[in-house]
């Protein structure tokens, strides 16, 4: 899945789990921004139930990705409608990619984001 961004992130000790609070704070089909270790992350809750986390800042002109519209595959930056794949962060409109993070919802309905060593450097 993540071949495009480099090595697959391995679920080992280098990965740190961040609890971002209840999933309910994100309305279905929308995104919200979170600060994680000083990095801004946009977390999206799709209508399918899937949850994705990508960088909150558009590499094109700094647009707020969390304000973007999504479908099952992409998010559109609200400023200039650049599109990015939610699962890989790759742009389908020729921009630099967004960083992506692995994100889950735990048994108590909390969003858990896994920051790997390489990501927290960026």
């Amino acid at each position, binding site marked *: 899945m993540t071949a495009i961004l480099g090595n697959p992130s391995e679920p080992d000790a280098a990965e740190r789990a961040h609890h971002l609070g209840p999933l309910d704070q994100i309305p279905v089909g929308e995104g919200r921004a979170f600060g994680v270790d000083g990095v801004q992350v946009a977390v999206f809750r799709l209508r399918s139930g899937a949850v994705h986390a990508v960088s909150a*800042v558009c590499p094109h002109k700094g647009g707020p990705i969390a304000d973007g519209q999504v479908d099952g595959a992409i998010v559109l930056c609200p400023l200039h409608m650049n599109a990015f*794949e939610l699962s890989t962060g790759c742009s389908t409109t*020729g921009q630099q990619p967004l960083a992506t993070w692995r994100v889950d919802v735990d048994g108590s309905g909390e969003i858990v984001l896994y920051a790997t060593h390489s990501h927290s450097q960026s």
Partner: protein
Amino acid sequence: MTLLEDAPVTEADESRDPGGHRARRKLVVVGNGMAGARAVEEILQRGGGEQFSITMFGDEPYGNYNRIMLSHVLSGEETDADIFLNSLPWYRENDITLHAGVRATRIDRFSKLVYAVNSADGTTSHTPYDVLIIATGSRSFMPSIEGLRTDDGELLPGVFAFRTIDDTRGMVTYAQHEDHRRAVVIGGGLLGLEAARGLQAYGLQVDVVHAGAHLMNAQIGPAGGEILRKSVQKLGIEVHTKARTTAVMGEDKVRGVWLLDHPLLECDMVVLAAGIRPNIDLAVTSGFTVERAIVVDDYMRTMDDPDVYAVGECVQHRGEVYGLVAPLWEQAVVLADQVTGTDTTAAYFGSRTATKLKVAGVDVASMGVPGPERDTDEHIVFSEPRRGIYKSLVIRDEKLIGATMLGDTSKVAFLMQAFDRGLPLPEERLEMLFNLGTPAEEVGAAELADDAQVCNCNGVSKEALVACVESGVKSVAGVMDKTRAGKGCGSCKTMVCQIVDWAAGGAVQEDPSANWYVPGVPLDKPELMAAIREKGLRSVSAVFAALAPDGAEDAKSKMGLASLLEMMWADEYIDEKDARFINDRVHANIQKDGTFSVVPQMKGGVTTPAQLRKIADVAEKWDVPMVKLTGGQRIDLLGVKKEDLPGVWADLGMPSGYAYGKSFRTVKTCVGSEFCRFGVGDSTSLGIRLETRFQGLESPAKMKLAVTGCPRNCAEAYVKDVGVVAIDGGRWEIYIGGAAGAHIRKGDLLATVDDPDLVVKLTGRFMQWYRENAKWLERTYAFVPRMGIEYVRDVIVEDSLGIADELDARMQASIDNYVDPWLEGAAPATPGQFRTSLPLEVLPRVPVR
């Protein structure tokens, strides 16, 4: 390096091949440029997807784009998004693993592995192959010039190569800097001239420094070069030929260049376009036979390994290295035939290169040799320097072996055919240079030979286009997608249209998706509305589930559907916030830094001292960075943070002015008969009345209105979606379909009436009909001419369809459903509706006055 130290192989496990087929062989392509991607496309076309699992390595972190068009991106004619040939989803759809931003470093021919390193994080990997294609392309030649690089080997700031999309973006940004006034382009070939012309678009003074004796010396002779120089200089570009650049001056950034025997040429920017060099390092390191480029045989195989092929600008075939795009397409066809085994007799024998393009605004065509080579060669020349026209032909043994056309390329279609296929030439040689009376001026679609190449970028012949039309594709866009004709430089698009039109016998279809209301639901507006009504679909998610292919959501379709559903269902509409664009989620207009603009309602542009005092207090309390009057006579508070919106609204205590949506926006008015000496009608009252009635109405595109009190038109009513003009005798003219934005159009007169009530009624009826029939984002200036003003008048004024009452009733239902959206400030509709989405401090700041 040993295998154990390397990262795990990222290859898919072939044992899970579905259906128990023989496991596919591994095809690895090093290079994701035009050659590599084209080779893969040709392979896929031959069923290569069944035979191979395909992996591609690309140095650049993108999909595949049309490098030829970079000069258009530089000049601003196209955006960088326009030039992508294969975006990332294409790779996924074709089951291709793309490693973008990963550079292949070494090929181990004996263990059949490609070693690569990720440019971003330095991680390494190795990938096994059964068949390998090297398509590493070429790079800008960097001449050894003193001062070109800083001590750490980087290019001096202000020095650019012109090869990649990143180079181009860098050049655009640098050229836009206000302190940068002068640029020097090193290299007076095709690319150099394109770069010079592109940079001029940013107001830079440009000098071209060319080492050769004349411009474009690879393609044209000295006499043509001299004429080209005059044409280029006429454009304001200074040309220095026989000029050797000895040094680039500047410590921190470029300040100028030194030429041999020439005073310092001061400049802020240097672009290197001094030719290209094949990328051969990988092949050399890996032990392949390399001369000027990677040597291949007529089957596009390397000399050293029958499982390794090479294609494109990195290839040397029969002593030739090509730098144009057409040979690369021909090579890719042969390569694909061989690799897939489709035609094992396919062979490449070299290309005759012919080009026709606009260089820096000058039409240039050249083919074959630039001038006579033997005493017996015929050389026919016409030169008219004043008009920048130069034509030259070289004929040997009654065959055209070379031609140059500058400034006038009207005969090029014929010459290219003659050159390509050795056609017999007219006894009267002059006929090859000019159209002498009959026959018709241009080679028409009907007369063109079947095998004549129409698209020279992608090598598509007339017969291929005709065959595509005959196979059932009857739209120009469809034929272009299928054949790729017109998808290179685009200069042949007119010809492609003519041929498709001719082949379809005039029955050309419009692209079906062009008529869909939104891209994600394959229905036009009447079909879509009928389906929505029939199935009772009241929310955007319900529409996708019922009507989209596979029920898939489409982000680009949501806004249009939300607008349509709200118009159709009024109070029965189920408002899903995620279907809304951010402006409609928070009822304000997003700005470049992620803040919002707040425009309170001010009907007809009329305000009061108390209202102004309130706005001033709010602006101060909330530190609003800019207060600005809008074109629609409103007051705009700019730079409000999302989280402050509810507070700002509460303090204002005024309803939304709708300066953000695809909706009814404003009614601009003049003071009309109330104060003006010339006013003949009470325009302010009528404007306020219209705005009160239609406030906030959803529509396919925004609607801006005006009412003006006399034909002096101070409120600009002639150029509004609906504009009302008071004329003498207590009458009112209603104009529709006007515009004064990017498109300027005077509205058409819909009706002249003597009663303001009738103005309100007809305005509402027209807007409702427009809401029900216009395409998404189709403004009235396009809608009204599309329908024809006579027809609109028949429907709206004469009620020729008998629908006037229904239109009025549906409009009334929408009006009754109006709720001021700013009330959501006190009771947010969703959790975190007004939560910040951005770390504002990392954003470009809008200057605060």
